[in-house]
């Protein structure tokens, strides 16, 4: 039983990261009906930018751990957000009136481009965050091993998700985003600047992806230029699992996918872990064709 709970917490820690990245997919999809395949690479940029800023500015030395990491996180979020907005401008805006799949191919091209840019700048070798930045404390609760950082990661993810949810639900700008997601033309007629909404979505989504990249870098230490592909795929799966376009769905989907993977690996088979996760996904979609929290809408033609 102890092992079960241990695996459960393992799954939640992984799932928290998936959920943060999934939010970027789902927000963009909600407004543009576009699967932004380059989102995973923005996550990687978060990890690399974090490393560069951390080592070149020595933030944690100057400001102490908590303040240093906070400043670092804000800088990474800002930079990746700008990158996301640039990506939208260059690769997606020209295709907004085009068939949806054309934008998907443009996104795939952007993904290849971004990934290989990183390889050329930083080289192909693994990059490693400096050791001993993080407090290495491990909590031991009823025999469960919980490194402090894992707890912090899950808490930070949940905190950001809740903040995003409140932003979307309670603020005026959030309402505009929701309106544009439901019907762009109608939103435009109501005086909403849809272009600005889209720009905003491409700022917030990548910012969350970037911070997820920074967290992975800080906690796991090792980063490389292809890591966004694996995380991106998982996060996209999570977004679909929860019902793409739905923000609480991305959170639930992410955490659930992490848990399914952990328990599948623990009790069925390690080697078949990803296959098990996809089987569960397919079964869920057969029962609920639009994901767990997705709305059942007729296909807009």
């Amino acid at each position, binding site marked *: 039983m102890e*092992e079960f709970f*241990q*695996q459960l917490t*393992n*799954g939640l*820690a*992984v799932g928290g990261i998936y959920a943060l990245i999934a939010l970027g997919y789902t927000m963009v999809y909600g407004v543009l009906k576009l699967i932004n395949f380059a989102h995973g690479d923005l996550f990687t940029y978060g990890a690399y930018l974090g490393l560069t800023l951390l080592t070149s500015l020595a933030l944690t030395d100057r400001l102490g751990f908590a303040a240093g990491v906070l400043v670092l996180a804000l800088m990474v979020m800002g930079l990746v957000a700008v990158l996301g907005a640039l990506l939208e401008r260059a690769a997606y805006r020209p295709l907004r009136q085009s068939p949806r799949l054309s934008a998907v191919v443009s996104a795939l091209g952007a993904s290849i481009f971004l990934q*290989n840019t990183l*390889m050329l700048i930083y*080289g*192909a*070798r*693994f990059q*490693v965050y400096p*050791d*001993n930045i993080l407090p*290495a404390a*491990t909590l031991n609760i009823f025999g469960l*091993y919980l*490194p402090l950082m894992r707890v912090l990661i899950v808490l930070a993810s949940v905190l950001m998700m809740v903040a995003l949810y409140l932003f979307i639900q309670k603020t005026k700008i959030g309402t505009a985003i929701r309106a544009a997601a439901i019907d762009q033309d109608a939103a435009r007629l109501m005086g909403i600047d849809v272009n600005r909404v889209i720009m905003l979505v491409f700022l917030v989504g990548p910012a969350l992806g970037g911070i997820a990249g920074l967290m*992975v870098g800080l906690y*796991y*230490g*090792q980063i*490389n230029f*292809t*890591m966004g592909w*694996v*995380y991106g795929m998982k996060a996209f799966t999570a977004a679909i699992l929860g019902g793409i376009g739905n923000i609480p769905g991305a959170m639930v989907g992410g955490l659930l996918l992490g848990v399914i*993977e*952990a328990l599948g*690996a*623990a009790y069925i*088979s*390690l*080697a078949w*872990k*990803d296959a098990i996760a996809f089987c569960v996904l397919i079964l869920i979609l057969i029962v609920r064709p639009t994901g767990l929290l997705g709305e059942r809408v007729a296909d807009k033609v």
Partner: protein
Amino acid sequence: MKQKLWVLAAALGLGIAAAAGAADTVKIGLMAPMTGSWASEGQGMKKIVELLAEQQNAKGGVLGKQIEVVTEDDGGDPRTASLAAQRLTTKGVAAVVGTYGSSVTEASQAIYDEAGIPQIANGSTAIRLTEKGLKHFFRTAPRDDEQGRMAAQTIDKLGFKKVAILHDSTSYAKGLADEANALMKKKGRDIVFFDALTPGERDYTTILTKLKGANPDVVLFTGYFPEAGLLLRQKKDMNWKVPFIGGDATNNADLVKIAGKEAADGYYFLSPPQPQDLDTADAKNFLADYQKKHNELPPSIWAVLAGDGFRAIVAGIAGAKSADGGQISGYLHKDLKNFSGLSGPISFDAKGDREGEVYRVYKVDGDGKFVLQKL
């Protein structure tokens, strides 16, 4: 728009048609993963082979001609590798060095063999590569069965009883895991765990939790260094003290960087000797030159083995007094004995395998240094 398409089509045609002009050089091919997941290995291979060529040329090249290294990217994937091989065969190379990864090498073997071009693979340890009776295939890398034997023997000598084996489902790691598993079972070792992780991920605590549940005396991990580094790091975070033994794919300077010195302390791995553990003047001088030029050590022993492949080819061309593939292969099979390689003496047997005991046992010390063990 039509014009643009024609321009594209013309560019494509030109690119394909760009043929290699013959010159007064001896061309030696290098097939390496310059892009894709193993790009770091490929780039190390290229740096080493090009530096060696530069040095050889300064000494007058071979057969009185300068050596030209022709590098082709195999992308670390079999289909791209077969194209890279076809391309090298049309470029008039005398012989080819490479590549990293058994299945990638395998996709190119038949092409070189049919073209009569000797190939010396550097990071391809799968047993069957040399069991096909190919006349022109050699490797400076050892074979998986030798490493499996060494792994079983080492675990025996260190006195561990309950063994957990973890691989990563790649051709190489699975083969090594199977080999070691069979040998240890025969000797009556208790194999308490045998499964695979998914490479390329970041979080392996699920696997470690499961491993810990099996309560082994030692864990044999046969996969690659990025995962090994993460496993060690996360194992330390768990306060789990079990020793780990790894295969030669974990012999990479980045292992300690990824794991952190503290977590890597006490990690054993099997590997062909590290260049710095060789006392030949050749190896020492070369490494000093390499460090001077690139300001770092080679990423791994596999890149160094590519260098050995290159040196063996140069020796083969000089020895056979010809750049003809058949003659080079003949020389390498019969006449190249105890050639002084960077990684130790090199001789090839009839199959093209490297002769002699190659594996050593290393242990990582508290400073993150790889220390040769005497067992």
